[in-house]
């Protein structure tokens, strides 16, 4: 017996991982910022290898591709950029309360599509019958309700039966997509395209619609921040997210909080859908949200449940996405290069979180302690 234990002696592993206490906030953000900058440089380097252009030139193409020529007084590209940021940010904001509650709402895409569908139905059916001042509130209310309903269905099952919400919300996306396909086919008269409708919360031409969308989302950012940070609801959400048992112990109705939060989350997604459909496109198709619902999940997570950080992250990612697409275009390569670019940057940031939460201790620091 004794021999066995001797032969079983293991060497101490080369390094081991220790959980850190909370890191100082500026250090943590320093690590994240460095990761983002380094990964962007690496990706720009790779793209300059692919395209055969210099790195500085690549940066310039990205900048021009996103902002255009601002110095000549042409702000159109800049406005368009704001609008794209606004939509993605709106979706990410919608997910933030749910994520804070540790409810994995992967259904932003579907909820936004349903919100958009609500807006589209109102726009088509009520166009010309009601003055715009009446129509706009109706559009808003209907699309919010549609989004909220789509969001609350998984929440009800989660609250009462503990159904896996990640998978449930994922599946809901595709049901929504098919409903849109059905509606588009019916209303498009078999052409699979709905002709743009004039009525909507923002005019389809001119610069006004850029500001309306961006303005609504700016207000929303502030509202979500205040809601999460200073309201009683926000407090309840964070307690439920940390520990459901604690929440029950201090008398929070967990089921109610889950359902209420998902109503809000779905409603904000509905707003995003409304902004897309009645603020920009004035029409709807299955690709109206275009996968941004999934990107928003990553944005909300990168934003660490803080709407302002989400704003910064969204601005960076939209810039990279558009810019990288332009870089690939400039060399007649496929613009899906943008997805690779953004994917790698996000993977790096996700990975760097490890160095914030844990620290690695290398063997040999305690050499003297041998038996």
């Amino acid at each position, binding site marked *: 017996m004794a021999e066995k234990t001797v032969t079983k002696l293991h060497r101490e592993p080369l390094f081991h*991982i*220790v*959980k850190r206490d909370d890191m100082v906030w500026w250090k943590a953000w320093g690590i994240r910022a460095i990761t983002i900058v380094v990964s962007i440089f690496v990706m720009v380097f790779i793209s300059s290898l*692919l395209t055969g252009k210099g790195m500085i030139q690549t940066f310039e193409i990205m900048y021009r591709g996103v902002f255009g020529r601002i110095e000549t007084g042409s702000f159109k590209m800049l406005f368009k950029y704001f609008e794209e940021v606004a939509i993605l940010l709106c979706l990410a904001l919608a997910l933030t309360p749910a994520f804070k509650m540790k409810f*994995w709402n*992967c259904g932003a895409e579907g909820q936004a599509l349903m919100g958009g569908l609500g807006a589209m139905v109102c726009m088509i059916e009520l166009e010309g019958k009601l003055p715009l001042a009446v129509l706009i509130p109706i559009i808003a209310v209907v699309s919010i309700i549609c989004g909220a309903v789509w969001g609350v269905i998984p929440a009800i*099952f989660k609250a009462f*039966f*503990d*159904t*896996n919400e*990640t*998978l*449930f919300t*994922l*599946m*809901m*996306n*595709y*049901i929504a*997509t*098919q*409903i849109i*396909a*059905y509606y588009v*086919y*019916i209303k498009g008269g*078999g052409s699979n395209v709905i002709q743009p409708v004039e009525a909507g919360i923002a005019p389809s031409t001119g610069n006004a619609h850029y500001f309306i969308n961006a303005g609504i989302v700016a207000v929303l950012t502030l509202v979500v921040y205040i809601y999460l940070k200073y309201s009683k609801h926000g407090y309840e959400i964070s307690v439920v997210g940390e520990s459901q048992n604690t929440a029950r112990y201090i008398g929070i109705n967990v089921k109610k909080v889950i359902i209420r939060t998902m109503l809000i989350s779905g409603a904000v997604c509905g707003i995003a859908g409304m902004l897309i459909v009645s603020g920009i496109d004035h029409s709807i198709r299955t690709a109206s949200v275009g*996968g941004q619902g*999934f*990107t928003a*999940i*990553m944005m909300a*997570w*990168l934003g660490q449940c803080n709407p302002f950080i989400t704003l910064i992250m969204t601005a960076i990612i939209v810039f990279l996405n558009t810019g990288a697409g332009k870089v*690939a275009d400039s060399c*007649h*390569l*496929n613009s*899906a*290069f*943008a*997805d*690779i*670019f*953004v*994917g*790698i940057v*996000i*993977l790096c940031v*996700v*990975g760097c*979180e*490890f160095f914030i*939460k*844990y620290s690695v201790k290398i063997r040999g620091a305690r050499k003297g302690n041998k038996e």
Partner: protein
Amino acid sequence: MIIQFICRAILLGVPLLFGSVGEIVTEKSGHLNLGIPGVMYVGAISGIIGSFFYEQACGNDIAKMNALLAVLIPLLCAIVGSVIMGLIYSFLTVTLRANQNVTGLALTTFGIGLGNFFGGSLTKLGGGEATFIALTKTSGFFSTKLPFADKLGWFGDIFLSHDFLTYLAIIVAVIVGFVLNRTRVGLNLRAVGESPATADAAGINVTRYKYFATCIGSAIAGLGGLQYVMAYANGVWTNNAFGDRGWMAIALVIFALWKPSVAIVGSFLFGALCNANNYIQGLGTATQELFKMLPYVVTIIVLVVISMRKRREFQPPAHLGLPYFREER
């Protein structure tokens, strides 16, 4: 007509079968790999890249191509490509303990981007003239049927007329089912997925199991992508043509209640559901669109029912989606 419908359903079902069996292996280790759609794209495009260069090396001359190599090169490339994706995922989620949902979704973005990028630019990067990839010759090798299938009537059509990846898919599913339920390795793997702390205390190397499960799962899923481009799409790559099949594979995992044997039947059923709209008489195009949501609706119903009934053998792995850190109890 009915025979054609069944064959079509099987053809459509095989990528889902590969994807879901791969995802089952991964999920049994407690990792919800939402990167499977991306992995399947990468599997497809790696196979395409491999056979593209092989066809070029042979001077696009079918006489010079060796049937065995023409099949093996894409197959190996697909496996290597998807294992690399699996390694990225498991490095981030197992070693770095990153959030699984976010990692998976980022991997999907990355994988789909990779697929579309190389699919759209490979001929240009390879110095060719063509604007799209059509590997009909390699695809021909892939969809070679058994020689005596034609002679056996309907029986031959339904059971023997498929490409070899279809049979491989079923074999893989059966083997995975056997390993999971009948061997010590499978028992250990299930223990890791149910309660990694317990498994760790029992002396199972949790990290190694998670890595292997994710990588093997990805390799299997990647073959699904390969089957799609080579057998279904005849070697022609179209961007985004693979569509949401990856998500459907994840849906199928739930539908199959985490059992590979059920996944075989389930995948052909899903294939039939995807396809039934073309075969039902008097169904308008609009209704067809509604029909396509059936696989997802069925999945949701299954998901809800298993969570209501709380039968222990039908539950997802208890530690699904949660990171494991030994020092955190």
